[in-house]
């Protein structure tokens, strides 16, 4: 089923002028891990993808049937359901599921629906000794076996041994719990393999969830997601960071089920036609005024090494000496991975995990979430609870500087949707290399959903 793409030769392929990402790694003050030396550029063609993927109800319905009902998807962190009886409600495209910690410590997932007349079993996350429906009181044990039917003399048709909650496939990876609504799906291990191999070194399971922010965005879920899948938009959307970001020097790598965009920090954009001073690079990184004082970079040290050194010391109280094992690139660059279809963990201590999904059954609105993972000392802190932003609340009000950047992305989203509804074009145009992750996502969608 999978599409095979031709490999590109990183030495000869078409690329942006300026330093390459691999050349930047050569200057690193620390040993660069093998995972950053991987290069996997692919020739995936230059075709357009239909605008209807974002605007048509019919396409959305196909997406639900062929993708959301079939694919492995991230639900919650293991430590959000750490005690027996803890349950988490996961909703996708109008369907609801319950992820439950059982008495024996296993994690199970069920459709969030009572087998009597269909009410949601649990509308909120929480803890309960059993799964009792609030409508007529049908009840199941945490392990999904039937426990009680009030006045069961009136249901002679129900065989108690055969009235369990249907179980869905569940898997965990690095503290993330995945489910698949398809009981006959392919194994998770194959699905996650490419990503898992590359994340071994970073071990995100050792990090705690320190923030979780969500907001409904007025656009198709892919409009929101794709805003975070390339760095090409930085010149238009985040101009203030061009002096300290190698936007179009990003390295994009494509594997079967995952892809990544690595964007270097502490280097200036090749789109600027003048030499950027080190001071201006620091100002752009730290969001300082055009004339603000900046720290002095020691003689012989480059900006990337300097920024990495500072960040290592900020991280050290929480992360310990592990910070010394991480090279400058791991500290300073954006290592933005995507596991198809909608899970986006960043590498190293970047700590960001994005998730994008349809908002209920609406193909014109999406739920965007940002989860932040962070290192800790001593006992594992309780996972941060989800914080829903209202329509008029900014991302910056919850996430500070990072949220300010999202607010610029969010500023585009409803206008992209409105433009897609208005365009006379049949397709969206994507670049060959810089937007390769978006292209890969669409090829995957073709594979799962169809043209």
């Amino acid at each position: 089923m999978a599409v095979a793409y031709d490999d590109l030769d990183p030495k000869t392929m078409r690329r942006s002028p300026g330093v390459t990402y691999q050349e930047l790694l050569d200057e690193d003050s620390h040993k660069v891990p093998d995972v950053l030396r991987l290069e996997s550029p692919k020739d995936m063609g230059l075709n357009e993808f239909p605008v209807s993927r974002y605007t048509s109800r019919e396409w959305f319905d196909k997406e639900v049937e062929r993708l959301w009902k079939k694919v492995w998807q991230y639900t919650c962190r293991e430590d959000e359901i750490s005690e027996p009886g803890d349950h988490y409600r996961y909703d996708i495209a109008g369907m609801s599921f319950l992820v439950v910690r059982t008495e024996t410590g296993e994690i199970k997932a069920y459709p969030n629906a009572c087998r009597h007349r269909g009410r949601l079993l649990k509308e909120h996350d929480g803890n309960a000794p059993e799964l009792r429906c609030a409508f007529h009181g049908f009840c199941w044990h945490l392990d999904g076996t039937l426990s009680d039917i009030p006045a069961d003399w009136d249901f002679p048709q129900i065989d108690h041994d055969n009235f369990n909650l249907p179980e869905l496939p569940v898997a965990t990876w690095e503290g993330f719990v995945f489910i698949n609504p398809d009981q006959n799906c392919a194994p998770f291990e194959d699905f996650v393999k490419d990503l898992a191999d590359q994340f071994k070194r970073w071990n995100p399971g050792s990090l705690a969830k320190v923030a979780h922010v969500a907001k409904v965005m007025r656009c198709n879920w892919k409009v929101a997601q794709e805003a975070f899948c390339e760095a090409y938009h930085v010149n238009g959307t985040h101009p203030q960071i061009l002096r300290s970001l190698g936007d179009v020097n990003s390295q994009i790598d494509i594997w079967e089920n995952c892809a990544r965009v690595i964007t270097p920090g502490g280097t200036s954009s090749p789109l600027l036609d003048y030499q950027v001073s080190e001071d201006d690079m620091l100002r752009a990184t730290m969001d300082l005024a055009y004339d603000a004082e900046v720290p002095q970079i020691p003689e012989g040290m480059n900006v990337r090494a300097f920024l990495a050194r500072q960040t290592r010391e900020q991280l050290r109280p929480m992360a310990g000496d592990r910070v010394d094992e991480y090279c400058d690139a791991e500290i300073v660059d954006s290592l933005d991975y995507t596991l198809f279809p909608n899970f986006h963990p960043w590498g190293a201590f970047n700590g960001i995990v994005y998730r994008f999904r349809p908002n209920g059954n609406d193909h014109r609105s999406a739920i965007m979430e940002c989860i932040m993972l962070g290192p800790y000392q001593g006992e594992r802190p309780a996972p941060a609870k989800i914080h829903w932003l209202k329509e008029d609340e900014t991302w910056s009000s919850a996430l500070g500087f990072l949220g300010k950047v999202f607010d610029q992305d969010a500023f585009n989203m409803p206008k992209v949707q409105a433009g897609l509804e208005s365009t006379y074009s049949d397709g969206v145009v994507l670049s060959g290399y810089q937007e390769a992750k978006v292209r890969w996502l669409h090829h995957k969608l073709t594979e799962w959903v169809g043209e």
Partner: protein
Amino acid sequence: MPTLTHPFDPETFYELTEDGHIRVSKGDAEGFFTREGVHVSGAIRHADPQLCVWVGNNPGDANQQMKEGATTINAKRSDPRA
């Protein structure tokens, strides 16, 4: 909020005014814009909307909370799914 210059146009300054507008200036010319880059007054009639979004966006104490890395953004909102 710091005064920034546009990387593609380093002679042009963007700053947040006390009444919440963005003042854009170049030499002796100036213009005032909303936080979404809509022209309000002044001779400069066009500004980069995204730089207005940036300069007008004040995270308040959220920046400090994030730096402290704690789980301080608590769930003060109810879940709209319910």
